[in-house]
Structure formats: C-alpha cells, structure tokens
C-alpha cells in the first residue's frame, strides 16, 4: 500500500467520524447546488435529473407511509394532484404569496385530504385499505376534470405553470427549476430523517411490526396512523407541485392517474422499503431505464430485429424482465443491494490490508 493511503487512513482515524460526515454533507451540497446547475446541460437537467429527483421524493412520501408505518396506499398520485392544483390556484388567486408559502399551504391542503382518506385505516387493513385509497385516486381525477373552477375555466382543463419566481429570481430556466426542485428535495429529505428518527417514526415502526403489541405499550394507534397519512400526503402534495411546475410545466387531472400511483409504488418496492435514499435509486431506475434502453436501441441500430413498433415493445419486455429479476434477486430493493455491496467491498479491503 502506498504512503499517501496510509496517511489518509491515519487522518481518517484521527478525525472523528461525525466530522467526516459533516464534510461529506457539505461537499455533497456544494455539488448539488453549485456544480450540477453550472455543469449539466439542459437535456440532463430537464429530462434526467429533475424527474428523478421529484419521483424520488414521491417515493420518500409513500415510503413514510408504507415502509415505516406499514400502511398501504394506491392513491399517491391523487395527493400529488391536490398539491399541484392547490399551488396553481393559490398563485393565480393570491399572487402576493411567496413561493415557499404556496408550497407549504399546498402540502397542507393535501395533508388534510390525506387525513380524510386515511380514516378507513382505523378500521380496515391490508388489501381492503388499498381499495379505499384507490377511491381517492378516482375521486380526485373526477373532481379536477369536472369542476372547471380548479383549472380557471380553461377549456382544455390543463393548468400551466404560473411564473415561478422567488425573491425576484426567475426560476423558469432549467437551472432555476432544478434549483427549486433540489432545495425543496433537500429540505424534505431533512424533514423525513427527523421524522423517522423521532418518537413518531419509532412508534410507526412499532405499529408496522405488530400493532397489538404497540397498543399494549401505550402507543395511540389511531392518532399515529392518521399522522402517517397526513405527513405522507403533505410530502406528496409538495411533490405534485414540483412535478407539475418544476418538471412538466403543465398538468391536468390525468397527469396524476393510476399509472403514476403505481410508478410511485414501484419506486418504493424497487428502491427498498423503509429507506430514504433507496427511493432515489428506485426513481432513477423507473425514470431512466426506459430512456437508456431507447438510447441503446438507437445507438446499436437494431433495425434488423424488426420495425420501430416491435423494437418499442421489445424495450418494454426487457424493462419488465429487469424489474422481475431485481425483485427476485433482491426483494429488499436496490438500497439493500448497495448496502451489501459496500460491506462486501469494505470486507475485501480489510482482507487486502
């Protein structure tokens, strides 16, 4: 082993672990807030990074509910749509509100809806609960496509992003929209960590693992479950604003359809339940794999295999096969795969020295 490595190892041993962690976080934030917006092209920002970030955030939202509190929801997209439509109407009808307040209030509106649709969780469980959250999915799609007030009587029922600005900064450019998305994402990740490590998070996990036992030790189950729905929906509401305005720039009721709910669900399953960063792995997988496959097909010039239609369907087949393989080989998700890989590398390194 080289000298510099030894020095590094010693330095690492001397400085406490927490110091290193703080340094890593600061370096990470510098990269996210300065290097990425300066270095990444419009294509990368608009089509790769922003959707991955936002879908990862949606994964976190659902993971709080599913992974930590053990409750199911098939209506994630409905709460995203509530957030998006609330933000649109707030900015339109109360233009004096600053953007952070708009985000906060939109999240709270979604949280209120989440509590209402979480009520059945007090009485029913599992599959049946899933059906009741499915109700939210259909109900809000119907509301937003039948009451034109929500889309300011626009004939096509779409809402388009109002001017996004904060403290005089115009956030319309890809870099601006990225900065909006990354600021909200980091804030919400921080909040998610706090919640998960707090008493609330621990009690959720107790309920998830065995609710009878949890109630015996004095956890107020009903209240905690409703809080789980409220917090998850708050996160989803804010995510919906980002999806509608920071990514797409427009949306209508069908942007947030059942497919989107299932996508969020798959992000949680593929990324790993009860993790925070795993959601971004899951989101990257769901958002990027189809694009990557398309690129490979384009680059490899596979037209001898069949026409465009056949190739497109082939891509979908491959995508499905990859999902199945991952779920078979790694039922705990990509996060567990990475965790195992890092411990294996650590072991191997220790073995080498």
């Amino acid at each position, binding site marked *: 082993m080289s000298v510099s490595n030894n020095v590094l190892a010693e330095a690492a041993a001397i400085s406490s672990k927490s110091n290193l962690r703080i340094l890593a976080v600061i370096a990470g934030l510098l990269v996210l807030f300065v290097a990425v917006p300066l270095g990444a092209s419009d294509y990368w920002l608009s089509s790769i990074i922003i959707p991955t970030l936002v879908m990862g955030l949606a994964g976190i939202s659902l993971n709080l509910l599913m992974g930590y509190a053990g409750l199911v929801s098939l209506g994630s997209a409905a709460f995203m749509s509530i957030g998006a439509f609330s933000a649109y109407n707030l900015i339109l009808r109360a233009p004096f509100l600053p953007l952070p307040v708009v985000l906060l209030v939109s999240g709270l509106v979604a949280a209120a809806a989440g509590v209402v649709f979480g009520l059945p969780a007090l009485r029913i469980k599992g599959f049946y609960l899933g059906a009741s959250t499915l109700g939210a999915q259909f109900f809000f799609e119907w509301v937003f496509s039948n009451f034109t007030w929500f889309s300011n009587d626009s004939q096509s029922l779409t809402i*388009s992003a109002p001017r996004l600005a904060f403290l005089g900064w115009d956030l319309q450019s890809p870099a601006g929209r990225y900065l909006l998305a990354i600021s909200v994402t980091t804030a919400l990740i921080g909040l998610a960590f706090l919640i998960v490590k707090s008493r609330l998070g621990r009690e959720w996990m107790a309920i998830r693992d065995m609710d009878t036992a949890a109630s015996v030790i004095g956890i107020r189950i009903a209240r905690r479950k409703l809080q789980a729905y409220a917090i998850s929906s708050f996160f989803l509401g804010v995510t919906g604003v980002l999806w509608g305005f920071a990514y797409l720039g427009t949306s209508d009721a069908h942007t947030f359809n059942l497919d989107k709910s299932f996508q969020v669900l798959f992000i949680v399953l593929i990324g790993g339940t009860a993790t925070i960063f795993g959601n971004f792995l899951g989101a990257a997988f769901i958002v990027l794999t189809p694009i990557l496959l398309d690129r490979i097909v384009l*680059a490899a010039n596979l037209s001898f295999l069949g026409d465009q239609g056949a190739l497109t369907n082939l891509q979908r087949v491959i995508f499905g096969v990859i999902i199945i393989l991952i779920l078979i080989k790694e039922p705990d998700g990509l996060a567990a795969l990475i965790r195992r890989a890092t411990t294996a590398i650590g072991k191997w390194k220790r073995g080498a020295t």
Partner: protein
Amino acid sequence: MSFFKKAFMLAGAIAIAASAAVTPSLAEEGTGQQLFPLFSYRTGPYAPSGIPQWAGYRDYFNYINEKGGVNGVKIFVQECETAYTLERAFECYERYKNGYAGAPVAALFTTSSGFDAAISDKARIDQLPIVSVAGGRGDAVDGSVFPYQFPLLFDYWTEASIVVEHIANQVGGYDKLKGLKIATLYHDSGYGRETIQPMGILAKKYGFEDIQIPVPHPGEQQQAQWQQIKRAGVDWVFFRAWGVMSPVGLKTAARVGFPADRIIGDIWTGSEEDARPAGAAAKNYLAVSVYPSGTDFKISQELKKNIIDAGKGDLKDPTKFGSVYYNAGLVQAIIFTEVLRTGQAKFGNHPLTKEEGHWAVEHLDITAERIEELGATGLLSPLKVTPQDHEGQPAAKIVQWDGTKWNAVTGWLKGDRPLFKDAIFAKAAAYAKEKNLPPREPVAN
C-alpha cells in the same frame, strides 16, 4: 457469485460499453440533412391510430429521399416513442430540440393535444416552431400571442360551424335551421368540451336548439344518453367521440332507433377504426374529414408503385394503406416538405435552422395549383399561413360510410370562421393576460 448476478452484471457492462462505443460513430451521420423528429406512439392506448400515421409519414419521406430529397436536402427521420405520455414526449423534445447528429431541426410536428398544450411555454423559450396539424390548442391561431405554435389546417370551432353548414345545406338553407334540435354528444374531456362554446354561438345566430350531452371516458356505456336524444326528439347529432366511444355510440344509436345518416362524427370519430367495428349500425353514418381516405390520389398511386409494392413501406398491415390515419400522416409529411421548400426559396437550398423554419411556417402558402403539382388534389385543401393567422384556411369535407369505406359527399366546406374570430382572439388575449406576456413585436415583411 451466483449465475444470475454474473449474467446481470455482464449484461449491464455490455450495454454501457455498447452505448459508449456506438454513439461517437453516429455523431455526424445527419450532416447536410434535415432532421424530422417523429414523436410516435406505437405502444399505449392510442397505438392503433398512431401506427398507420407514422407509416404515412415515413413512406412519404422515403419516397422524397429516393427522389433526391427536397432540393437535394434529404430528410433524416428520428423516431422517438412517447407511448402518448407527456414525460416521454418531454424527453424526446429535449433530445431533439437543438438538432441531432449534425442535422438541424426546422419545426416540430406533434400529434398529441396534451403535449401541444404542455409544450407552449418551453417552445416560447426555445423559439422552436410547434406544428400540430388539425389539432392543438384553439386559441393558438392568434400568432401575436402564440408566435411559435401552428394549429394548421383545422380546429374544432370551425368543425362546429362546418357541421351546422352541412345540416343547413341538407334542410334547405340557414333560415330553415330555426327550431331544429342539434345535440352534441361529446367525450367528457378537454378535447370534447372544445365545441360547447362555438355551438352556443351558432345556436344563438341561427336559432336552433343546442343540446350538450357529455359521455364520461371511455364511453362504453351510452344507453342513457341516446335514450335522452331519442326522447328529446333530436334532429341531428354531432358526435364527438374518441376510441371505443365511437363504435359503441353507433351501435347504441341503432338500438334506440336513431338513424345513422343523422349522425355527424368529429374528425377523430371518422376513421375506418371507428366505423367498421359498429358493423351494419354504421352504414350511412356521416363524419367530418380533413384527411379523406382513399388510394386514388395521384400521390397515393406514386407511393404504391415506388414504396409499397417495392416492399419498402412501413405498414405491416397493407390494408391500412389509404386509410384515414395513413393519409393523415401523408398530409402532414407533405406539409412538412412544403415548409422546407418555402424556407429554401428564401434562405437557399440547405437544411433549415429553427429560425428559418419559423419564417417558413409563417409564410407557408400551398395553393391549389401547387397541390395539383404534388398530386394531392382532393387530399389536401389550400393552405395559407400568415404571422397573424397561424391556422391557414380551415376546410373539411363531409364523408359517408357505405359499410366498407368512406366516400366524400361534399367538397371542401369552409364553415363560418369570421363568426368566431372575436371569441378565439379574446381567449388568446385572456391567456396572454394570465401569463403576463408582452405583446409580440410586429413582423416585418
């Protein structure tokens, strides 16, 4: 390490290596050519209406390229699958908005109203002309508010007035419309609701009774609606369906005893795929058509000889040749090549940039003589775009289903577009106000 994992990692490594190795060799493949990004949907719920359209596009471009291109500039088609989702379409947009592999992009042709509405703001920032033939947002005809959007050829407002014009012709003049009952049975969506306002304006002007009946998506249950039509004693039905709603509606109409020749379908309700599944119930059913079907046009015969019969066509199912959707793709491809010719006449015979493309679309003028030269008489109506009017002169035919195919029963009808001008421009102005847009600088020349 298990076999699975090994195989998995190997596959990953090969994929990454392959994409890295092959990309550079592609880099300048398109030099000297004109990029045409084809945003397709060969998968997803609307694939059946998509597939023949892309074939129409591809076959025509293939034909043009074999003849040496447009004044020597070949068309470089890059297909990008969107599955009719916004997310994928955005990725395609970002991929091609600045050209690809050395080929510049002159204009983007889209075939999804959702994407068209969504891309409005981005196109304005990127200054890329977005052309949506016979679709797109109605208020975008106002070029002063929407400088980069072109809903060419047709809109649903004009469609409403064409339907009323045809009914007037049938009953013996506009003055006979008074007291008639015209029901609009529409798909309850943004697309379906587009005709509520124009039908209201027309009803007020001509004194017929305007009845609006929504059908919730996807529309596989219409018993109640058709019974309502029958009970109300409706004289004509303007049928604005989409997908499965069309054959179901025609069958239900037959069941309640409403005559098919009193039903006039929307342009997206008037394809073979809409009428054929309804069987005998669809006989004599009428529809508005911007894309007349058929294979007798001169250009269709050329395509048949040089592309289809030569085995170079894109269609897997050759019976779709000359269908409404195939001809839709064909018409759009013809318009694109005419845009190129218009631009080349001013800027020289080279691939056009988006600025040149924008000028070209705004000065597009396809005259009846030019259409005759193209061999597309009867297939395409004359079209003249100006910087103020981004639609051209909308026109459509009424066609009738004889049980096996569509036949035109009228020539090009123009409707009463001036009647709506104020209402449409007021909508555009309201949009400009909501978005706080500055007025466009007047266009010179």
